[in-house]
């Protein structure tokens, strides 16, 4: 039979270790800035020499120097946004791909919204027309005809459908 004294030691040791894990904050060593860290920032910047080439994939010496500069700033403790802001301050909006021409810059801000508004308006217009046709169909009890390439069939209002139906019945009666 195991004595009580022997059994309590493992329990005490376990409790002490658990307490240490909770109370003592582990000190993680600050790792060096990796290439991935640099490229994460570089991906958001553009080559100063070549047009529209992101900094992370550019092979020129200028880009290599800029990536070194990013690495130094990250190592100095700057955040990614602070590094980008520094580059914009030093080299202008072109480094983040913003057009330098004021007119183009304004248009680049307005145009996506305008195109979205146009697309939304067109979709809304089509939806409203479809719903109107559906509502009319429910009201008159006449099913909305399927889409046809004929311009004639696109104008099948309930009144015209009634006319066709009457004509059809006349023709059928004549032929009996």
């Amino acid at each position, binding site marked *: 039979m195991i004595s009580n004294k022997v059994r309590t030691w493992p329990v005490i040791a376990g409790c002490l270790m658990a307490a240490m894990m909770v109370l003592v904050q582990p000190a993680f060593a600050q790792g060096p800035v990796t290439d991935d860290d640099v490229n994460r920032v570089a991906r958001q910047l553009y080559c*100063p020499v070549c047009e529209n080439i992101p900094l992370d994939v550019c092979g020129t010496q*200028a880009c290599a*120097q800029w990536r070194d500069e990013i690495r130094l700033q990250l190592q100095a403790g700057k955040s990614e946004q602070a590094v980008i802001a520094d580059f914009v301050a030093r080299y202008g909006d072109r480094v983040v791909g913003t057009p330098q021409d004021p007119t183009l810059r304004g*248009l680049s801000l307005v145009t996506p919204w305008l195109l979205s508004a146009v697309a939304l308006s067109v979709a809304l217009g089509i939806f409203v027309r479809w719903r109107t046709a559906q509502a009319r169909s429910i009201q008159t009890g006449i099913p909305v005809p399927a889409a046809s390439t004929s*311009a*004639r069939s696109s*104008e099948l209002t309930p009144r015209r459908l009634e006319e066709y139906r009457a*004509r*059809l019945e006349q*023709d059928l009666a004549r032929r009996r």
Partner: protein
Amino acid sequence: MDNPVDLDLELNETEAVPVARHIHPVFVLVPLAVVILLAAIFGIQLVRRGQTQPTEGAAPPFSLTTFDGETYTLEKLRGKIAVVNFWASWCGPCRAEAPELQKAWEKYRDKGVVLLGVAYTDTERQARAFIAEFKQTYPNGLDIGTKISTDYRIRGVPETFFIDRNGKIVRFFMEPLNLSMISSVLDKMLAEG
């Protein structure tokens, strides 16, 4: 049994002229406006691309703060001949040109000529190392925000502008210079007074 009625044919025969489809003006005007807008964007871009460096007339004003902390402006340089050279430490031809520019500076600095080096999209560390390597003593500074290079519409480096005492561009080079080329321009500008 009677032949089946060709109803479609009957309907076609009695059918009137097809009614024109009614399209709301908005669905015409808005896409048209978008097309015009996109054309304007491309047009402006093409025009901007076509604009080259100023090779004559009034030089665009600039303000350059050198690594020594001094500020040079075009206005302050009135009455002197200014040579504005755009360079970068990563530029191979700039390395060939650097000693020649230093020689020109030593030859003309006491004759009312100011040589300014504008470091284009360069890091300060690399630019200073370049200056130290070539032992350049003429004023050099970073083009903060690439404002000066934008105003001068440079396409690359090295590019050099010779500006007379009245602030007008007299000569422009889009190639690395040597002392002979620099002297041929400056001697003529100095002779003209």
